[in-house]
């Protein structure tokens, strides 16, 4: 217990220190912000995949719902970003509720397939609802996030905002898993039948965690729209959904930090490959890094289904194991 507190203390201290270490290096901060945003989404998806054992191949849709709701309400209707973010969550929850109500009655791979279909349909809507989303050209000029008169304008403020949300998200997720609803969610992973026999309302538990994961993606979407200032449908397509799944697989489900860890590995490895590989192989372009991530997914699924959090970490570095 004591070592866990230390780990958390060291991690939080590290997070706070980063903007002071890299004072004039916006690249590091922007990477960290990206990791935070993906990490937030991956944490939600981790609850769904890693703990409840349900696969969603359409989570980019909720990312998009949050992003477009925030973009539209703040830019076109002049709402405050915080209110728009909350409405984004409501919209995502409502959509997730309808999808969940229908799809979560199906078992295992059928949910994956239904969410896959849902994701493609939402992508088509983002592409075609030009009046709201700007269509394929994208949505320009989303203002930075602000609370009252404080504007999160520069890189450091955005960093604080995003990672504040991540820490809050992790804290909330860890607490959820310890609650009665969380125990019901975790019971699904090993056997739905056993869970049902023990009195867990399986459908309700699945719906709960699906809604929660949609809310995480929606918040990440809102923050993304405000941070980058520009969004287009391509950000919310099937490849993004699958990328999120890959992050969760890489991070693994032995600790709640798995989603953030997976996002970190994905972003850093992706940037590293983009920097190094084209120098060695000049023809490499586009999304060539998919080769490496694809192989990584296969290797992890075969040899280490628990992902990175499944390794025996030195006590001092062990990501909080409380979640399992």
């Amino acid at each position, binding site marked *: 217990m004591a070592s866990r507190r230390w780990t958390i203390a060291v991690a939080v201290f590290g997070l706070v220190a980063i903007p002071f270490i890299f004072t004039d290096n916006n690249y590091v901060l922007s990477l960290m912000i990206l990791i935070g945003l993906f990490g937030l989404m991956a944490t939600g998806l981790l609850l769904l995949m890693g703990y409840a054992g349900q696969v969603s191949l359409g989570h980019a849709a909720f990312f998009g719902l949050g992003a477009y709701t925030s973009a539209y309400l703040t830019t076109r209707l002049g709402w405050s970003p915080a209110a728009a973010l909350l409405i984004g969550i409501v919209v995502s929850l409502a959509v997730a509720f309808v999808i969940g109500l229908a799809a979560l009655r*199906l078992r295992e*791979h059928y949910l994956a397939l239904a969410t896959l279909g849902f994701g493609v349909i939402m992508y088509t809507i983002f592409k075609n609802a030009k009046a709201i989303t700007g269509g394929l050209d994208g949505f320009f000029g989303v203002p930075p996030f602000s609370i009252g008169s404080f504007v999160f304008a520069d890189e450091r403020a955005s960093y604080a905002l995003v990672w504040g949300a991540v820490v809050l998200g992790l804290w909330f997720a860890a607490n959820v898993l310890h609650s009665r609803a969380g125990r019901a969610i975790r019971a699904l992973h090993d056997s739905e039948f056993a869970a049902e026999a023990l009195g867990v309302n399986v459908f309700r538990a699945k719906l709960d965690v699906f809604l929660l994961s949609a809310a995480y993606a929606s918040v990440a979407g809102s923050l993304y729209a405000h941070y980058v200032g520009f969004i287009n449908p391509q950000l919310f397509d099937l490849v993004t959904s699958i990328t999120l799944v890959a992050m969760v697989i890489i991070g693994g489900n032995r600790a709640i930090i798995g989603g953030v860890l997976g996002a970190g590995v994905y972003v850093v490895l992706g940037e590293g490959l983009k920097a190094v590989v084209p120098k060695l192989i000049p023809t490499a*372009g586009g999304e060539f890094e998919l080769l490496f991530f694809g192989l990584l997914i296969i290797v992890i699924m075969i040899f280490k289904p628990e992902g990175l959090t499944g390794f025996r970490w030195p006590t001092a570095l062990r990501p909080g194991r409380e979640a399992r």
Partner: protein
Amino acid sequence: MDAFSQLLQLLFAGLTVGSIYALIALGFVLTYNVTGILNLAQGEFAMLGALIAVSLVASGIPYGLALVGAIAAVSLIGGLFERLALAPARGASTATYLLITIGFSFAMRGLAIFVWGTQPYALPPFTSDRSFSLLGAVIQTQSLWAVALSVLAFGALEGAFNRTYAGKAMQACVINPVAARLVGIDPKRMALYTLAASAGLGALAGVTVAPISGASYGMGLMLGLKAFVAAVIGGLTNAPAAIAGAYLIGITEALVEGYLSSSYKDAVSFLFLLIILLYRPTGLFARAEGKRV
């Protein structure tokens, strides 16, 4: 062009695309039946087949030989995929297999970028690039090939299943893997054959569609997913129903594209998927309601 000719034109375009979906969907159903694996990478076999054929033709190998070579090469890749990625995970959950095939799909797309880059390639048609007109609609010869091949492939598959030892053995694995093993059939070897055959079917679809719509590293994803929707419409285990499903979404897409807008055509197929999953999880043509929930 009058309204009737336009309709005919769209129907034939739909039939052509549907045939391509059907070839890939056949591989999908075959894999699912024998191994219980949902292979979301099925479309990548089509992409690999098309691009390998392009390269073989470019290297001066006679056209027919290049097509056969491409299909054989992709079958080999399918077999390797089974040996190296699926077999080691034997006994894993459906979700794990699903994720492995997604990983494979990623890997093949990335690999294709390394080998062929991101630009599209053209492949000459099988016989002639002439088109002819039928009641005012213009029909390409390659489209006839596509339709004929989808029917032929189904026939060949049925024949192989019912008349050869390997086919009967595969059927035995579908019906009862434990009993099949008891009478000396090796389900592992059957899984290998199945993946190789499915990959070959995918490659055949790839080389057939390439002369019509070109070949590029990204073509596999949508082709595979549409074929997969077709398979779901057919109930995942029923080959003729999957082919019917493939024609159904091919024609629907063509009609939506022709009368509404091409930007909605993908959404329509996946709407089909959702509706089928929610209301008829056993497929549109299932005789009895099975329990899938």
